[in-house]
Protein backbone atom coordinates (compact mmCIF):
# COMPACT_ATOMS: atom_id res chain seq x y z
CA UNK A 1 0.00 0.00 0.00
CA UNK A 2 2.78 2.39 0.97
CA UNK A 3 4.72 1.71 -2.21
CA UNK A 4 1.60 2.33 -4.30
CA UNK A 5 1.02 5.70 -2.64
CA UNK A 6 4.72 6.53 -3.01
CA UNK A 7 4.57 5.66 -6.70
CA UNK A 8 1.58 7.87 -7.33
CA UNK A 9 3.19 10.64 -5.28
CA UNK A 10 6.48 10.46 -7.19
CA UNK A 11 4.64 10.42 -10.53
CA UNK A 12 2.57 13.42 -9.46
CA UNK A 13 5.76 15.20 -8.42
CA UNK A 14 7.47 14.41 -11.73
CA UNK A 15 4.45 15.54 -13.68
CA UNK A 16 4.21 18.78 -11.69
CA UNK A 17 7.87 19.70 -12.11
CA UNK A 18 7.52 19.27 -15.87
CA UNK A 19 4.92 22.02 -15.88
CA UNK A 20 6.37 25.24 -17.31
CA UNK A 21 3.87 27.38 -15.44
CA UNK A 22 5.45 26.20 -12.22
CA UNK A 23 8.86 27.52 -13.24
CA UNK A 24 7.36 30.81 -14.35
CA UNK A 25 5.71 31.25 -10.98
CA UNK A 26 8.89 30.38 -9.08
CA UNK A 27 10.88 32.75 -11.29
CA UNK A 28 8.36 35.47 -10.60
CA UNK A 29 8.54 34.87 -6.86
CA UNK A 30 12.36 35.04 -7.00
CA UNK A 31 12.12 38.20 -9.06
CA UNK A 32 9.90 39.75 -6.39
CA UNK A 33 12.41 38.82 -3.68
CA UNK A 34 15.06 40.56 -5.76
CA UNK A 35 12.80 43.53 -6.33
CA UNK A 36 12.47 43.87 -2.57
CA UNK A 37 16.05 45.16 -2.58
CA UNK A 38 15.05 47.97 -4.94
CA UNK A 39 11.89 48.79 -3.00
CA UNK A 40 13.96 49.04 0.17
CA UNK A 41 16.24 51.53 -1.50
CA UNK A 42 13.49 53.98 -2.41
CA UNK A 43 12.26 54.03 1.17
CA UNK A 44 13.95 54.84 4.48
CA UNK A 45 15.42 52.27 6.85
CA UNK A 46 13.21 49.35 5.87
CA UNK A 47 15.44 47.43 3.46
CA UNK A 48 15.52 44.32 5.61
CA UNK A 49 11.88 44.64 6.56
CA UNK A 50 10.84 44.85 2.90
CA UNK A 51 13.00 41.91 1.92
CA UNK A 52 11.44 39.71 4.61
CA UNK A 53 7.88 40.96 4.10
CA UNK A 54 7.89 40.97 0.33
CA UNK A 55 9.99 37.80 0.02
CA UNK A 56 7.84 35.72 2.35
CA UNK A 57 4.60 37.15 0.96
CA UNK A 58 5.77 36.17 -2.53
CA UNK A 59 6.62 32.66 -1.32
CA UNK A 60 3.21 32.38 0.33
CA UNK A 61 1.07 33.85 -2.44
CA UNK A 62 2.83 32.12 -5.33
CA UNK A 63 2.79 28.88 -3.38
CA UNK A 64 -0.96 29.23 -2.90
CA UNK A 65 -1.41 29.90 -6.63
CA UNK A 66 0.75 26.87 -7.49
CA UNK A 67 -1.11 24.69 -4.98
CA UNK A 68 -4.46 25.71 -6.39
CA UNK A 69 -3.62 25.54 -10.06
CA UNK A 70 -1.83 22.23 -9.89
CA UNK A 71 -4.16 20.78 -7.26
CA UNK A 72 -7.36 21.42 -9.19
CA UNK A 73 -6.12 19.49 -12.21
CA UNK A 74 -4.82 16.46 -10.39
CA UNK A 75 -7.97 14.38 -10.62
CA UNK A 76 -9.80 16.03 -13.50
CA UNK A 77 -6.81 15.82 -15.82
CA UNK A 78 -6.45 12.12 -15.14
CA UNK A 79 -10.12 11.64 -15.99
CA UNK A 80 -9.86 13.83 -19.07
CA UNK A 81 -6.80 12.00 -20.39
CA UNK A 82 -8.32 8.70 -19.36
CA UNK A 83 -5.12 7.75 -17.56
CA UNK A 84 -7.11 7.35 -14.36
CA UNK A 85 -8.74 4.20 -15.73
CA UNK A 86 -5.32 2.68 -16.42
CA UNK A 87 -4.24 3.47 -12.87
CA UNK A 88 -7.42 2.18 -11.26
CA UNK A 89 -7.44 -0.96 -13.37
CA UNK A 90 -4.31 -1.94 -11.47
CA UNK A 91 -4.44 -2.95 -7.82
CA UNK A 92 -4.66 0.68 -6.71
CA UNK A 93 -7.51 1.81 -4.51
CA UNK A 94 -9.19 5.08 -5.11
CA UNK A 95 -8.20 6.47 -1.71
CA UNK A 96 -4.57 5.53 -2.39
CA UNK A 97 -4.77 7.51 -5.61
CA UNK A 98 -6.05 10.62 -3.77
CA UNK A 99 -3.53 10.33 -0.94
CA UNK A 100 -0.68 9.72 -3.40
CA UNK A 101 -1.71 12.79 -5.38
CA UNK A 102 -1.76 14.83 -2.18
CA UNK A 103 1.74 13.78 -1.16
CA UNK A 104 3.04 14.38 -4.68
CA UNK A 105 1.67 17.91 -4.72
CA UNK A 106 2.79 18.58 -1.15
CA UNK A 107 6.31 17.40 -2.10
CA UNK A 108 6.31 19.70 -5.12
CA UNK A 109 5.35 22.64 -2.93
CA UNK A 110 7.99 21.84 -0.30
CA UNK A 111 10.68 21.77 -3.02
CA UNK A 112 9.32 25.03 -4.52
CA UNK A 113 9.31 26.67 -1.13
CA UNK A 114 12.90 25.53 -0.62
CA UNK A 115 14.05 27.25 -3.82
CA UNK A 116 12.00 30.38 -3.18
CA UNK A 117 13.39 30.51 0.36
CA UNK A 118 16.92 30.46 -1.04
CA UNK A 119 15.95 33.55 -3.03
CA UNK A 120 14.65 35.28 0.10
CA UNK A 121 17.80 34.45 2.09
CA UNK A 122 20.02 35.55 -0.80
CA UNK A 123 18.20 38.92 -0.95
CA UNK A 124 18.47 39.22 2.82
CA UNK A 125 22.20 38.54 2.71
CA UNK A 126 22.57 41.13 -0.03
CA UNK A 127 21.00 43.89 2.08
CA UNK A 128 22.41 42.88 5.49
CA UNK A 129 25.80 41.44 4.41
CA UNK A 130 25.45 38.92 7.23
CA UNK A 131 22.97 36.66 8.93
CA UNK A 132 21.98 37.16 12.53
CA UNK A 133 20.43 34.71 14.96
CA UNK A 134 16.97 36.28 14.56
CA UNK A 135 17.02 35.47 10.83
CA UNK A 136 16.48 31.84 11.79
CA UNK A 137 12.92 32.89 12.67
CA UNK A 138 12.27 33.16 8.93
CA UNK A 139 12.43 29.37 8.88
CA UNK A 140 9.46 29.29 11.26
CA UNK A 141 7.50 31.58 8.93
CA UNK A 142 8.42 29.31 6.00
CA UNK A 143 7.32 26.27 7.98
CA UNK A 144 3.95 27.92 8.64
CA UNK A 145 3.67 28.77 4.94
CA UNK A 146 4.25 25.10 4.09
CA UNK A 147 1.54 24.12 6.58
CA UNK A 148 -0.76 26.57 4.85
CA UNK A 149 0.05 24.89 1.52
CA UNK A 150 -0.88 21.48 2.93
CA UNK A 151 -4.33 22.80 3.75
CA UNK A 152 -4.73 24.47 0.34
CA UNK A 153 -3.52 21.28 -1.42
CA UNK A 154 -6.06 19.17 0.40
CA UNK A 155 -8.82 21.66 -0.39
CA UNK A 156 -7.84 21.82 -4.06
CA UNK A 157 -7.94 18.03 -4.18
CA UNK A 158 -11.29 17.97 -2.41
CA UNK A 159 -12.84 20.29 -4.98
CA UNK A 160 -11.02 18.55 -7.81
CA UNK A 161 -12.63 15.27 -6.80
CA UNK A 162 -16.12 16.41 -7.73
CA UNK A 163 -15.92 19.64 -9.70
CA UNK A 164 -14.51 21.10 -12.89
CA UNK A 165 -11.02 22.67 -12.75
CA UNK A 166 -12.40 26.20 -13.12
CA UNK A 167 -14.94 25.84 -10.34
CA UNK A 168 -12.38 24.06 -8.17
CA UNK A 169 -10.01 27.01 -8.58
CA UNK A 170 -12.78 29.45 -7.66
CA UNK A 171 -13.79 27.40 -4.61
CA UNK A 172 -10.22 26.90 -3.39
CA UNK A 173 -9.24 30.53 -3.83
CA UNK A 174 -12.45 31.71 -2.18
CA UNK A 175 -11.73 29.50 0.80
CA UNK A 176 -8.21 30.93 0.98
CA UNK A 177 -9.67 34.45 1.11
CA UNK A 178 -12.39 33.46 3.59
CA UNK A 179 -9.75 31.66 5.67
CA UNK A 180 -7.82 34.90 5.91
CA UNK A 181 -10.93 36.50 7.44
CA UNK A 182 -11.67 33.57 9.74
CA UNK A 183 -10.97 35.57 12.87
CA UNK A 184 -13.40 38.28 11.80
CA UNK A 185 -15.95 35.58 11.21
CA UNK A 186 -15.38 34.34 14.74
CA UNK A 187 -15.73 37.87 16.11
CA UNK A 188 -18.98 38.22 14.18
CA UNK A 189 -20.18 34.94 15.68
CA UNK A 190 -19.42 36.25 19.16
CA UNK A 191 -21.50 39.34 18.53
CA UNK A 192 -24.43 37.48 16.94
CA UNK A 193 -27.36 35.91 18.79
CA UNK A 194 -29.50 32.83 18.43
CA UNK A 195 -29.36 30.74 15.27
CA UNK A 196 -27.09 33.14 13.42
CA UNK A 197 -24.59 32.83 16.25
CA UNK A 198 -24.52 29.05 15.91
CA UNK A 199 -24.37 29.27 12.15
CA UNK A 200 -21.54 31.78 12.15
CA UNK A 201 -19.61 29.79 14.75
CA UNK A 202 -20.06 26.63 12.69
CA UNK A 203 -18.85 28.32 9.52
CA UNK A 204 -15.92 29.92 11.40
CA UNK A 205 -14.74 26.48 12.51
CA UNK A 206 -15.45 24.83 9.18
CA UNK A 207 -13.45 27.19 6.99
CA UNK A 208 -9.67 27.02 7.33
CA UNK A 209 -8.18 29.61 9.65
CA UNK A 210 -5.05 31.00 8.02
CA UNK A 211 -4.56 33.99 10.28
CA UNK A 212 -2.58 32.03 12.88
CA UNK A 213 -0.17 30.87 10.16
CA UNK A 214 0.74 34.38 9.14
CA UNK A 215 3.64 35.44 11.35
CA UNK A 216 5.55 37.30 8.62
CA UNK A 217 5.06 40.76 10.13
CA UNK A 218 6.13 39.78 13.64
CA UNK A 219 9.10 37.82 12.34
CA UNK A 220 10.19 40.80 10.26
CA UNK A 221 10.43 42.63 13.61
CA UNK A 222 12.43 39.75 15.06
CA UNK A 223 9.68 38.85 17.52
CA UNK A 224 9.93 35.21 18.58
CA UNK A 225 7.16 32.71 17.88
CA UNK A 226 5.87 30.66 20.81
CA UNK A 227 6.68 26.94 20.65
CA UNK A 228 3.06 26.25 21.57
CA UNK A 229 1.90 28.08 18.43
CA UNK A 230 4.25 25.99 16.29
CA UNK A 231 2.84 22.80 17.82
CA UNK A 232 -0.79 23.87 17.56
CA UNK A 233 -0.45 25.14 14.00
CA UNK A 234 1.18 21.85 13.01
CA UNK A 235 -1.64 19.85 14.60
CA UNK A 236 -4.30 22.12 13.10
CA UNK A 237 -2.83 21.83 9.59
CA UNK A 238 -2.55 18.05 9.88
CA UNK A 239 -6.10 17.64 11.18
CA UNK A 240 -7.59 20.03 8.66
CA UNK A 241 -5.71 18.52 5.71
CA UNK A 242 -6.75 15.04 6.87
CA UNK A 243 -10.36 16.22 7.12
CA UNK A 244 -10.35 17.69 3.59
CA UNK A 245 -8.55 14.64 2.20
CA UNK A 246 -11.06 12.34 3.87
CA UNK A 247 -13.80 14.33 2.20
CA UNK A 248 -12.04 14.00 -1.14
CA UNK A 249 -11.65 10.24 -0.62
CA UNK A 250 -15.33 9.87 0.33
CA UNK A 251 -16.50 11.74 -2.75
CA UNK A 252 -14.06 10.04 -5.08
CA UNK A 253 -14.90 6.58 -3.71
CA UNK A 254 -18.55 7.08 -4.60
CA UNK A 255 -18.03 8.90 -7.85
CA UNK A 256 -19.25 7.21 -10.96
CA UNK A 257 -16.26 7.23 -13.29
CA UNK A 258 -17.94 5.48 -16.18
Amino acid sequence: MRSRIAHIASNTFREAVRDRVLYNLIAFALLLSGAAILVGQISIEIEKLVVINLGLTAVSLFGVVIAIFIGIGLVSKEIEKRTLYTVLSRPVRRWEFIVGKFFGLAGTLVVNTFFMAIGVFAALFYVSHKFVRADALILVALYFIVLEFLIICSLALLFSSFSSPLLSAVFAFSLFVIGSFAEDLRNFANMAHGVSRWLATGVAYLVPNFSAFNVITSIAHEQPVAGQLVLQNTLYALFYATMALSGAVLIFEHRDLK
Partner: protein
Amino acid sequence: MKQRQKTTMLASACLIVSLAASSFVLHRTDQLRPQATLDEVLFLSSPKVIKRASLGYDGLMACIYWTRAVQYFGYRHHYDAASYNLLAPLLEIATHLDPHLVVAYEFGTSFLAPKPPNGAGQPERAIELMEYGIQNNPDNWRLYYDLGFVYYMELQDYKRAAETFERGSHVPNTHPFLKILAAQMAQHAGEYETARMLWSATYQTTQDELIKQNAVEHLRALRVDEDVKHLQEAVTRFGERTGRLPASMAELVAAEGLAGTPVDPDGHPYKLTPEGRVEVRVPDDFPFATKGLPPGYKPQAKFHAMP
Protein backbone atom coordinates in the same frame (compact mmCIF):
# COMPACT_ATOMS: atom_id res chain seq x y z
CA MET B 1 14.05 37.49 -48.52
CA LYS B 2 11.47 35.00 -47.47
CA GLN B 3 7.96 36.12 -46.60
CA ARG B 4 8.44 35.07 -42.99
CA GLN B 5 11.62 37.10 -42.61
CA LYS B 6 9.89 40.11 -44.17
CA THR B 7 7.08 39.88 -41.65
CA THR B 8 9.55 39.59 -38.78
CA MET B 9 11.47 42.65 -39.94
CA LEU B 10 8.31 44.69 -40.44
CA ALA B 11 6.82 43.69 -37.10
CA SER B 12 10.09 44.48 -35.28
CA ALA B 13 10.29 47.89 -36.93
CA CYS B 14 6.65 48.57 -36.05
CA LEU B 15 7.27 47.57 -32.46
CA ILE B 16 10.27 49.88 -32.03
CA VAL B 17 8.63 52.84 -33.78
CA SER B 18 5.38 52.46 -31.83
CA LEU B 19 7.24 52.20 -28.52
CA ALA B 20 9.26 55.33 -29.28
CA ALA B 21 6.16 57.20 -30.46
CA SER B 22 4.06 56.26 -27.43
CA SER B 23 6.90 57.27 -25.06
CA PHE B 24 7.23 60.59 -26.87
CA VAL B 25 3.50 61.30 -26.66
CA LEU B 26 3.43 60.35 -22.99
CA HIS B 27 6.34 62.67 -22.31
CA ARG B 28 4.52 65.52 -24.06
CA THR B 29 1.37 64.76 -22.08
CA ASP B 30 3.34 64.92 -18.82
CA GLN B 31 4.58 68.36 -19.85
CA LEU B 32 1.01 69.47 -20.40
CA ARG B 33 -0.01 68.51 -16.87
CA PRO B 34 3.13 68.78 -14.66
CA GLN B 35 1.22 68.85 -11.38
CA ALA B 36 -0.98 65.89 -12.20
CA THR B 37 1.22 63.30 -10.50
CA LEU B 38 1.47 65.53 -7.46
CA ASP B 39 -2.27 65.39 -6.83
CA GLU B 40 -2.29 61.89 -5.54
CA VAL B 41 -5.43 60.29 -4.29
CA LEU B 42 -5.90 57.95 -1.39
CA PHE B 43 -8.55 55.59 -2.72
CA LEU B 44 -8.76 53.67 0.52
CA SER B 45 -8.29 55.82 3.57
CA SER B 46 -9.42 53.47 6.33
CA PRO B 47 -6.54 51.53 7.90
CA LYS B 48 -9.02 48.86 9.01
CA VAL B 49 -10.31 48.27 5.48
CA ILE B 50 -6.78 48.09 4.11
CA LYS B 51 -5.77 45.68 6.86
CA ARG B 52 -8.65 43.38 5.92
CA ALA B 53 -7.92 43.71 2.21
CA SER B 54 -4.29 42.75 2.76
CA LEU B 55 -5.35 39.13 3.50
CA GLY B 56 -2.97 38.93 6.43
CA TYR B 57 0.01 40.34 4.53
CA ASP B 58 -0.28 43.58 6.49
CA GLY B 59 3.46 43.86 7.10
CA LEU B 60 4.08 44.14 3.37
CA MET B 61 1.24 46.63 2.99
CA ALA B 62 2.72 48.70 5.83
CA CYS B 63 6.08 48.79 4.01
CA ILE B 64 4.29 49.85 0.82
CA TYR B 65 2.37 52.64 2.57
CA TRP B 66 5.50 53.80 4.40
CA THR B 67 7.38 53.92 1.09
CA ARG B 68 4.46 55.85 -0.38
CA ALA B 69 4.64 58.32 2.50
CA VAL B 70 8.39 58.79 1.94
CA GLN B 71 7.89 59.27 -1.79
CA TYR B 72 4.95 61.61 -1.26
CA PHE B 73 6.84 63.77 1.21
CA GLY B 74 10.06 63.72 -0.83
CA TYR B 75 8.30 64.67 -4.05
CA ARG B 76 6.24 67.48 -2.59
CA HIS B 77 9.13 68.72 -0.52
CA HIS B 78 11.31 68.83 -3.60
CA TYR B 79 8.77 71.06 -5.34
CA ASP B 80 8.20 73.20 -2.21
CA ALA B 81 4.57 72.16 -2.06
CA ALA B 82 2.51 74.18 0.39
CA SER B 83 0.30 71.33 1.54
CA TYR B 84 0.86 67.73 2.56
CA ASN B 85 -2.75 66.61 2.91
CA LEU B 86 -2.09 62.91 2.36
CA LEU B 87 0.98 62.64 4.56
CA ALA B 88 -0.77 62.11 7.90
CA PRO B 89 -3.30 59.56 6.52
CA LEU B 90 -0.51 57.64 4.77
CA LEU B 91 1.50 57.48 7.99
CA GLU B 92 -1.56 56.47 10.00
CA ILE B 93 -2.32 53.66 7.58
CA ALA B 94 1.30 52.43 7.61
CA THR B 95 1.46 52.40 11.41
CA HIS B 96 -1.98 50.84 11.88
CA LEU B 97 -1.02 48.06 9.47
CA ASP B 98 2.22 47.47 11.36
CA PRO B 99 2.19 49.15 14.79
CA HIS B 100 5.83 48.11 15.31
CA LEU B 101 7.10 49.99 12.27
CA VAL B 102 9.18 52.31 14.46
CA VAL B 103 10.85 54.04 11.53
CA ALA B 104 7.46 55.37 10.40
CA TYR B 105 6.95 57.06 13.77
CA GLU B 106 10.46 58.48 13.94
CA PHE B 107 10.76 59.84 10.43
CA GLY B 108 7.02 60.37 10.01
CA THR B 109 7.01 62.78 12.92
CA SER B 110 9.92 64.65 11.44
CA PHE B 111 8.01 64.99 8.16
CA LEU B 112 4.81 66.11 9.87
CA ALA B 113 5.92 68.42 12.68
CA PRO B 114 8.26 71.10 11.25
CA LYS B 115 6.81 74.22 9.70
CA PRO B 116 6.88 74.54 5.91
CA PRO B 117 9.08 74.46 3.90
CA ASN B 118 10.85 71.88 6.05
CA GLY B 119 7.77 69.83 6.85
CA ALA B 120 4.01 69.64 6.79
CA GLY B 121 3.54 71.96 9.77
CA GLN B 122 1.20 69.56 11.56
CA PRO B 123 2.79 69.06 15.00
CA GLU B 124 -0.55 67.96 16.52
CA ARG B 125 -0.80 65.08 14.01
CA ALA B 126 2.84 64.26 14.73
CA ILE B 127 2.05 64.05 18.44
CA GLU B 128 -0.96 61.80 17.77
CA LEU B 129 1.21 59.54 15.63
CA MET B 130 3.93 59.38 18.25
CA GLU B 131 1.48 58.69 21.10
CA TYR B 132 0.11 55.80 19.04
CA GLY B 133 3.67 54.59 18.56
CA ILE B 134 4.38 54.77 22.29
CA GLN B 135 1.14 52.95 23.03
CA ASN B 136 2.26 50.07 20.81
CA ASN B 137 5.97 50.18 21.62
CA PRO B 138 6.04 51.32 25.24
CA ASP B 139 9.60 50.13 25.80
CA ASN B 140 11.17 52.13 22.99
CA TRP B 141 12.82 55.14 24.64
CA ARG B 142 13.56 56.84 21.32
CA LEU B 143 9.84 57.45 20.75
CA TYR B 144 9.58 59.38 24.03
CA TYR B 145 12.66 61.32 23.03
CA ASP B 146 11.20 62.17 19.62
CA LEU B 147 7.88 63.19 21.15
CA GLY B 148 9.59 65.42 23.71
CA PHE B 149 11.56 66.88 20.84
CA VAL B 150 8.36 67.87 19.01
CA TYR B 151 6.98 69.51 22.16
CA TYR B 152 10.23 71.37 22.69
CA MET B 153 11.19 72.42 19.16
CA GLU B 154 7.89 72.82 17.37
CA LEU B 155 5.42 73.80 20.09
CA GLN B 156 7.81 75.29 22.63
CA ASP B 157 5.73 73.46 25.22
CA TYR B 158 8.57 72.93 27.67
CA LYS B 159 6.36 71.51 30.41
CA ARG B 160 5.05 68.75 28.14
CA ALA B 161 8.55 68.15 26.81
CA ALA B 162 9.87 67.71 30.34
CA GLU B 163 7.00 65.33 31.19
CA THR B 164 7.65 63.26 28.09
CA PHE B 165 11.38 62.99 28.74
CA GLU B 166 10.54 62.04 32.30
CA ARG B 167 8.18 59.29 31.07
CA GLY B 168 10.87 58.02 28.74
CA SER B 169 13.45 57.96 31.52
CA HIS B 170 11.48 55.19 33.28
CA VAL B 171 11.52 52.84 30.29
CA PRO B 172 13.73 49.77 30.72
CA ASN B 173 17.17 50.18 29.07
CA THR B 174 16.48 53.85 28.42
CA HIS B 175 19.28 56.27 27.59
CA PRO B 176 20.50 58.10 30.73
CA PHE B 177 20.29 61.52 29.08
CA LEU B 178 16.47 61.42 29.12
CA LYS B 179 16.61 61.95 32.88
CA ILE B 180 19.08 64.80 32.41
CA LEU B 181 16.94 66.32 29.67
CA ALA B 182 13.86 66.19 31.87
CA ALA B 183 15.72 68.08 34.60
CA GLN B 184 17.25 70.51 32.10
CA MET B 185 13.78 71.33 30.72
CA ALA B 186 12.52 72.29 34.15
CA GLN B 187 15.30 74.82 34.75
CA HIS B 188 16.67 75.96 31.41
CA ALA B 189 13.90 75.49 28.84
CA GLY B 190 14.21 77.76 25.83
CA GLU B 191 17.93 78.33 26.29
CA TYR B 192 20.47 77.69 23.57
CA GLU B 193 22.35 75.31 25.81
CA THR B 194 19.32 73.05 26.12
CA ALA B 195 18.70 73.00 22.38
CA ARG B 196 22.40 72.28 21.83
CA MET B 197 22.19 69.44 24.29
CA LEU B 198 19.20 67.95 22.45
CA TRP B 199 20.86 68.08 19.06
CA SER B 200 24.17 66.79 20.43
CA ALA B 201 22.33 63.87 22.01
CA THR B 202 20.65 63.26 18.66
CA TYR B 203 23.99 63.24 16.91
CA GLN B 204 25.54 60.87 19.41
CA THR B 205 22.71 58.35 19.62
CA THR B 206 21.74 57.84 16.00
CA GLN B 207 23.31 55.50 13.46
CA ASP B 208 21.53 57.16 10.58
CA GLU B 209 23.77 59.39 8.46
CA LEU B 210 20.88 61.58 7.34
CA ILE B 211 19.91 62.31 10.94
CA LYS B 212 23.54 62.88 11.96
CA GLN B 213 24.00 65.37 9.15
CA ASN B 214 20.78 67.12 10.09
CA ALA B 215 21.87 67.36 13.73
CA VAL B 216 25.14 68.96 12.62
CA GLU B 217 23.19 71.51 10.54
CA HIS B 218 21.07 72.41 13.55
CA LEU B 219 24.09 72.68 15.83
CA ARG B 220 25.72 75.03 13.32
CA ALA B 221 22.54 77.09 13.13
CA LEU B 222 22.36 77.27 16.92
CA ARG B 223 25.88 78.64 17.04
CA VAL B 224 24.98 81.28 14.48
CA ASP B 225 21.85 82.24 16.44
CA GLU B 226 23.80 82.56 19.65
CA ASP B 227 26.68 84.50 18.04
CA VAL B 228 24.32 86.91 16.33
CA LYS B 229 22.36 87.42 19.55
CA HIS B 230 25.53 88.32 21.46
CA LEU B 231 26.85 90.56 18.69
CA GLN B 232 23.51 92.30 18.39
CA GLU B 233 23.57 92.96 22.14
CA ALA B 234 27.07 94.38 21.71
CA VAL B 235 25.76 96.71 18.99
CA THR B 236 22.99 97.89 21.34
CA ARG B 237 25.51 98.49 24.12
CA PHE B 238 27.72 100.42 21.71
CA GLY B 239 24.76 102.56 20.69
CA GLU B 240 23.82 103.26 24.31
CA ARG B 241 27.40 104.23 25.09
CA THR B 242 28.18 106.38 22.07
CA GLY B 243 24.78 107.44 20.78
CA ARG B 244 25.53 106.07 17.31
CA LEU B 245 25.91 102.74 15.53
CA PRO B 246 29.35 101.21 15.04
CA ALA B 247 30.74 102.07 11.59
CA SER B 248 32.19 98.63 11.06
CA MET B 249 32.64 95.24 12.66
CA ALA B 250 36.26 96.19 13.42
CA GLU B 251 35.06 99.17 15.47
CA LEU B 252 32.65 96.97 17.38
CA VAL B 253 35.36 94.37 18.02
CA ALA B 254 37.71 97.05 19.32
CA ALA B 255 35.01 98.64 21.51
CA GLU B 256 33.97 95.31 23.03
CA GLY B 257 37.56 94.12 23.45
CA LEU B 258 36.96 90.91 21.50
CA ALA B 259 39.91 88.66 20.65
CA GLY B 260 39.33 88.91 16.91
CA THR B 261 36.70 89.36 14.21
CA PRO B 262 33.86 86.98 15.04
CA VAL B 263 33.32 84.30 12.40
CA ASP B 264 30.49 81.89 11.66
CA PRO B 265 30.97 78.09 11.79
CA ASP B 266 32.27 78.16 8.20
CA GLY B 267 34.95 80.73 9.10
CA HIS B 268 33.27 83.66 7.30
CA PRO B 269 33.30 86.91 9.31
CA TYR B 270 29.89 88.20 10.39
CA LYS B 271 28.67 91.25 8.50
CA LEU B 272 27.53 94.50 10.16
CA THR B 273 25.02 96.39 8.02
CA PRO B 274 24.78 100.21 8.03
CA GLU B 275 21.45 99.76 9.89
CA GLY B 276 23.34 98.03 12.72
CA ARG B 277 22.17 94.51 11.91
CA VAL B 278 24.54 91.58 12.30
CA GLU B 279 24.21 89.09 9.44
CA VAL B 280 25.88 85.95 8.12
CA ARG B 281 27.69 86.21 4.81
CA VAL B 282 26.09 83.15 3.18
CA PRO B 283 22.60 82.58 4.62
CA ASP B 284 22.04 79.48 2.45
CA ASP B 285 24.79 77.71 4.40
CA PHE B 286 22.65 77.85 7.56
CA PRO B 287 19.16 76.73 6.55
CA PHE B 288 17.97 76.35 10.15
CA ALA B 289 19.34 79.63 11.50
CA THR B 290 16.70 82.03 12.78
CA LYS B 291 18.94 85.04 13.39
CA GLY B 292 21.49 86.91 11.26
CA LEU B 293 19.49 86.55 8.06
CA PRO B 294 18.87 89.43 5.62
CA PRO B 295 15.37 90.96 5.86
CA GLY B 296 12.88 89.06 3.72
CA TYR B 297 15.21 86.11 3.28
CA LYS B 298 13.42 82.82 2.70
CA PRO B 299 15.47 79.75 3.61
CA GLN B 300 15.67 76.93 1.10
CA ALA B 301 13.69 73.86 2.05
CA LYS B 302 15.81 71.24 3.68
CA PHE B 303 14.92 67.90 5.20
CA HIS B 304 14.41 68.37 8.89
CA ALA B 305 14.90 64.97 10.45
CA MET B 306 14.18 64.51 14.08
CA PRO B 307 16.47 62.41 16.20
